[in-house]
C-alpha cells in the first residue's frame, strides 16, 4: 500500500520526535554522570589547596588559596562552574602538572583516537567474517568451535591477551617492538609497525563480543518467514545469508558493533598501560596514581561521553531500522 504524502510526513515527524527524545535523554544521562563523577571525586575530606601547600601551611595561606581557586564556594556553584568549563573546553588546571588540563588532554587524545580508529578498522571486518561464518553453519562443528572460542575470549583478562601478543611477536618472533612509541617522523607503515601490537590486542578484546552479537543478529533474521521462502525456492545457503539476510540484518549488526566498541574504552586502559602508549587511558591511570583530580575528572568525562555516544548511535540505528516506527 502506497503511503500518502501526508502520512509519510507524519511518520517523519514522529520519527524526529522519537530521535530528539532519545538524544535529550542521552544528554540528561551525561549530565547526571557528570554529577556522579563530581560528587565521587570529592568524597574524601581535604582539598586541592591543602594538598598544594602541604601539611605545614598556615590556615590563613590555605584559606587565601582556597578563595583564589574558588574552593570556598558552595559545591553547587563549583559543580556548575566545572560543568560550564567542560562544555567550554576548559576543564580546569592540573596542580600536579602545573598545566591547563585542556593542554595535557590535547596532546594525548589524538593518539587514543588513532589507536581506537585503527583497532576498529581491524576488528569490524574480522568480527563480521566470524559472525557470518558462524551463523551460516548454525549448530555445526565450526559454529560450536567459534562459539566456545569467542565465549572464552570474552572472559579472558585484557592483560593476558597483551602479554601473549608480546611473548609471541616481540620475544619469540622478534617481528614487532614491545613498546608502542609513536614515531616522531616516518611513514604510515612505521606508525602501523609501532602500533601493531596494541591494535592487535585491542582488536582481539573487541572482536569476541562483536562476533557473538553479529551472529545473534543474523540468526534472529534466519528465523523469519522470508528466509524460509528463499530457502524453499532453492537459494544456496551462502547466497541466502549474503544477499537476502545481510541487508536486513545491517541495523542490528551496526547496533552490535557500536555496543561492542565500548569494550575499547575499558581495554584501552590496560593496553595503553602495558605498551606504554601515550594515550588518554594511560594518562588517566597516571592521574589516579598522582591524585590529579581535575585531570582525572576530565578524562573520566571524555570516556563516559564516548560510551554514551556509542550507546546513542546504537539506539538511533535501531530506531531508524525499525520499519514499524519508520512508516508509522
Amino acid at each position: 500500500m502506497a503511503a500518502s504524502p501526508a502520512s509519510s510526513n507524519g511518520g517523519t515527524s514522529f520519527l524526529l520526535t522519537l530521535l530528539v527524545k532519545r538524544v535529550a535523554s542521552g544528554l540528561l544521562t551525561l549530565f547526571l554522570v557528570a554529577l556522579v563523577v563530581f560528587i565521587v571525586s570529592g568524597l574524601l575530606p581535604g582539598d586541592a589547596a591543602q594538598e598544594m601547600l602541604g601539611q605545614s601551611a598556615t590556615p590563613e595561606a590555605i584559606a587565601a588559596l582556597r578563595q583564589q581557586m574558588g574552593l570556598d564556594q558552595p559545591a553547587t556553584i563549583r559543580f556548575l562552574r566545572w560543568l560550564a568549563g567542560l562544555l567550554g573546553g576548559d576543564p580546569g588546571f592540573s596542580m600536579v602538572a602545573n598545566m591547563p588540563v585542556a593542554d595535557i588532554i590535547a596532546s594525548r587524545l589524538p593518539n587514543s583516537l588513532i589507536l581506537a580508529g585503527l583497532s576498529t578498522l581491524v576488528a569490524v571486518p574480522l568480527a563480521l567474517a566470524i559472525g557470518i561464518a558462524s551463523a551460516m553453519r548454525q549448530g555445526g562443528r565450526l559454529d560450536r568451535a567459534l562459539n566456545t572460542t569467542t565465549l572464552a575470549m570474552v572472559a579472558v583478562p585484557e592483560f593476558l591477551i597483551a602479554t601473549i601478543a608480546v611473548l609471541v611477536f616481540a620475544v619469540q618472533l622478534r617481528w614487532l617492538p614491545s613498546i608502542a612509541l609513536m614515531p616522531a617522523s616516518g611513514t604510515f607503515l612505521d606508525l602501523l609497525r609501532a602500533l601493531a601490537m596494541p591494535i592487535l590486542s585491542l582488536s582481539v578484546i573487541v572482536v569476541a563480543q562483536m562476533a557473538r552479537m553479529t551472529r545473534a543478529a543474523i540468526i534472529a533474521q534466519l528465523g523469519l518467514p522470508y528466509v524460509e521462502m528463499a530457502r524453499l525456492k532453492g537459494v544456496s545457503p551462502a547466497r541466502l545469508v549474503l544477499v537476502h539476510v545481510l541487508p536486513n540484518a545491517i541495523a542490528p549488526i551496526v547496533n552490535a558493533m557500536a555496543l561492542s566498541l565500548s569494550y575499547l574504552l575499558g581495554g584501552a586502559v590496560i593496553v595503553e598501560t602495558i605498551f606504554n602508549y601515550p594515550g588518554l587511558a594511560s594518562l588517566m591511570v597516571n592521574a589516579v596514581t598522582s591524585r590529579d583530580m581535575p585531570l582525572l575528572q576530565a578524562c573520566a568525562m571524555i570516556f563516559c561521553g564516548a560510551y554514551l555516544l556509542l550507546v546513542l548511535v546504537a539506539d538511533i540505528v535501531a530506531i531508524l531500522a525499525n520499519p514499524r516506527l519508520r512508516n508509522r
Partner: protein
Amino acid sequence: MSAMLDEKKAEAPAPGWVARLPLAGKVGLGLVIFWIATAIGGPWLAPYDPGAFAHQDVFAGFGAVHWLGSDYLGRDVLSRVLSGARYSVGLAAASAIAASSIGTGLALIAALAPRWLDEMLSRFMDTLISIPSKIFSLVLVAAIGSSLPLLFLIATLIYIPGAYRIARSQAVNLAQMDYVQVARTRGEGSAYIAVREILPNMLHPMLADFGLRFVFIVLLLSGLSFLGLGVQPPDADLGSLVRENISGLGEGAPAILVPALAIATLTVGVNLLIDALPRRRGSKEG
C-alpha cells in the same frame, strides 16, 4: 556428614544435570570446582611460604622442585599463585554476592513501591550503569583509596546497577502474575509478596547473573591490581602477581604467564559453565 561420606558422594555417578551438560560446560564446572577448592585450601597446600625467597634464581622456569619456577625476587610461584587465588576468588565472590543481593533487594522494592520511587531508583541506576566500569573504578580508587574493604565496596557499588536492572525486569513482570494478585487480594503485605511470591521465581536467572557478575568483578579487580591500583603489597592477588613480574616478560617466565592464565581459566570456566546451564530467555548481559 563425615569426610568419608563426602568422598563417596563425589565418586558416585554425577547427578543428572552434570551428565546433561555439554562438554564445554563440564570443563567449566571442573575449572570452577578446582578454583573454589584452591581458594579455600590453597594456602595450606603451598609448598613454601609465599613471602620466602626460596629459589636462588629469579624468573626460573618450570622445574621439579619449584614446579612453576620463581618470581622476580626468587619466590616460589606455585605458592604465590595458591595464596593469591584466595584474594582474587574471595574478594570477587564477596563483592558479587553483595552486588547481586543488594541489586535484587532494591529491584524488589522498586517493583512494589510507588511509581515515583521506582522511577527515581531506576534513573539513578541507569546513570551509574552509563559509566564504564573500569573508568568508574579508577575514579573511585583515586577518590577513596584501595584497601581490601574499599576494593570490596568499589566492586560492589559498580556492579549493583547491572544486577538491579536484570532483577527489576524480572520482578516487574512477576508482580503482574495472577498468584501475586491473589496474594494481594488475600491481604498479604508487600514484604511477604516480595520474599515469598516474587523472589523464589527470580532466583534462577539471578543465579546465572551472579555468575556473570563474578566474572566481571574478577576481571575488574585483577585489572586494577595489574595497574597497581588494586590489592596492595604485601597482599597480592593474581593480578598483582602479573604486575610485579612484568619484567620477566622478555624471558617468557612462568612467573608472569601462570597467574595470568590462572585468572583466565577461572573466568573462562565460570563463563562456560553459565552458558551451558539450561536457562530461560530474556536474561541479558549488563
